[in-house]
């Protein structure tokens, strides 16, 4: 599954639909494949959704690393 554009951009949870961006929410995703030249990485979240993430703010990433992502951009590596 790939997510991005459309209503699936909202995160559904018990009893609520949330907007990850407006709620200032960041989520943990795991890197599947990095494209360092483009500053991008294909990642997968807890639910198995794939998403493309901008990685310039955290430097080079490798498959298996866990990133904290907000609005499609990795803000930090999870320590």
């Amino acid at each position, binding site marked *: 599954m790939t*997510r*991005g*554009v*459309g*209503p*699936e*951009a*909202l995160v559904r*949870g*018990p*009893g*609520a*639909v*949330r*907007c*990850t*961006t*407006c*709620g*200032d*929410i*960041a989520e*943990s*995703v*795991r890197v599947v494949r990095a494209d360092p030249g483009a*500053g991008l990485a294909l990642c997968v*979240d*807890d639910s198995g959704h794939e*998403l*493309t993430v*901008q990685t*310039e*703010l*955290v*430097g080079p990433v490798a498959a298996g690393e*866990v990133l*904290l992502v*907000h*609005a*499609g*951009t990795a*803000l*930090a590596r*999870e*320590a």
Partner: protein
Amino acid sequence: MRYVQEFRDPGLGRALAAEIRTLAADGRSYKLMEVCGGHTHTIYRYGIDGILPPEVELVHGPGCPVCVLPMGRVDLAVATARMPGVTLACFGDVMRVPGSAGSLLEARSQGADVRIVYSPLDALAIARAEPDREVVFFAIGFETTAPSTALTLRRAQAEELANFTCICNHVLIEPPLRALLDSADVQIDGFIGPGHVATVLGAEPFLFVPREYGRPFVVSGFEPLDVLQSIRMLLEQLREGACTVQNQYGRAVPWAGNPRALAVMDEVFEVRPEFEWRGLGAIPHSALALSGAYADFDAERRFALHAPDVEDPPACQCGEVLKGLIKPWDCRIFGTGCTPERPAGTCMVSPEGACAAYYTYGRHETEREPVA
């Protein structure tokens, strides 16, 4: 994913709640503000307010960017979306925010091309795929989101993409905090600080809160145990007479922030002289616009857009809610003239808004005084 379950452990939560009850049993009352809407949501989703002692009151701050968006900016977005040839891309919650002439959702139902995106990068992809459309990204959010917009604009510039622009509504966290602390009618004992803003800014920039205003500040994560631990840390400071910034969210927040994020923000944005905030009025130097180097991507310049001055609905009391002066159920239209299905005020639009959180999780049913 790792960490999540550990930070929702019920046994640890009960232990933290017991420690908070012990700390609060000194005859004083404590009013703590959670700055971020994400914390508000966690508090009500996990019932944290229900296990706190009555001496600890949580008030909800201005940290939901949807909730502080003035009607004039919504009207600007709607007018842009209705322009021929324009595709307006925005985050999900913005769709239902009411403007004086309706919402973006209503504009879409009337034929405007409005699309929900998860990230600015998705808006850029639309522009690449549809070169005959003018794609305008309605950028919103605090310093957490601004770097994502900045990186996307840098990509657009590198690709010389001519059909991609941005309406920049990014806001800064320090000016509204100062406005709240300078307000004589706001009495807050300590702050649960915005964890994800701090992944970008770091914890250090919040030192002005203890140093200039004498209030403790704890940068907090967003899981229920994070919030409970942050409350405990604040109470410990208040009990001991300490007053400093503590970083509870050390697993994600470096003390000095993310230097790459700060650099790209400096490159792409400049600070606006002032910006209008819902309920708080115009606050100087509180928002970002595109810098001169990115002027070609500024939709407000390219299309000569201007946000009109629009008064909030007179019955709406979002401003008092955002300052923590009243509880959502104290608003005269809460749950009647303003519901999540038909919001009148912005705090009812986003699930991270205080009013929507109270309404969604039924707090008003137990806490409202019965009508005689």
